[in-house]
């Protein structure tokens, strides 16, 4: 608890966690990113599963959404860092918070595995007549991981 206490005691973070406007605004921005960033992930995954946006090639969907995903993800993570560090002591014993962090790690692993074989091989996948299984696996895992992220995030507030 020593580290968590030291982090939370940084004056800026301590003020921030008790602020009337700043904290709720950062929280709302973080949640809006679920809609924006999460929505784009959903769109990409649906395209990889062949369930939507079929009039566009996989390459078109992935490359056009990529810069926006980076922006949305960047905002989401910076807001999340502010939120988590300002309540470090409260979150340190919270299992929902730690599950969420573990899932974040798993999402990183997902990216390491699937980026070279799926997300960076969209042209190849467009040429093949059938959607390859690896794309579907990537999409389903992505959906499961991210949904769990969002649920855990919400449940953080409800742990005693």
């Amino acid at each position: 608890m020593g580290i968590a206490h030291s982090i939370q005691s940084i004056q800026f973070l301590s003020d921030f966690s008790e602020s009337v406007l700043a904290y709720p605004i950062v929280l709302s921005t973080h949640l809006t990113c679920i809609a924006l960033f999460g929505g784009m992930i959903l769109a990409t995954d649906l395209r990889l599963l062949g369930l939507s946006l079929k009039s566009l090639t996989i390459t078109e969907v992935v490359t056009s959404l990529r810069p926006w995903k980076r922006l949305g993800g960047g905002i989401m993570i910076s807001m999340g860092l502010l939120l988590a560090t300002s309540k470090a002591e409260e979150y340190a014993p919270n299992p929902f918070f730690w599950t969420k962090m573990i899932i974040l790690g798993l999402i990183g692993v997902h990216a390491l595995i699937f980026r070279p074989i799926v997300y960076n091989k969209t042209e190849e996948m467009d040429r093949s007549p059938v959607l390859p299984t690896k794309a579907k696996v990537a999409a389903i895992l992505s959906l499961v991981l991210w949904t769990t992220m969002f649920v855990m995030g919400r449940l953080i507030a409800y742990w005693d």
Partner: protein
Amino acid sequence: MLFLAQPDIYLQPTPYLVNGRFMFLLKMSLLVAALLYNFTVHRKVAKMDNPPPALSKLVAIVSLLLWVSVVFGGIFIGFLQ
């Protein structure tokens, strides 16, 4: 469902300062506005084959602003007691 769990917040007397009930009413108004906007202006422009880019951008920005403010409104209901 959230309303049914904690009706007290939403039934506070009419305020002359900003409180949870005020934010709830504001959020509901924004939600109605966003839905109305979505099913009229937004849908009409989305169906056009070649909408003028300025119009598309304006319609999109208004739509985003409306929906994002619904999210903000929801969070602030809990933060303004």
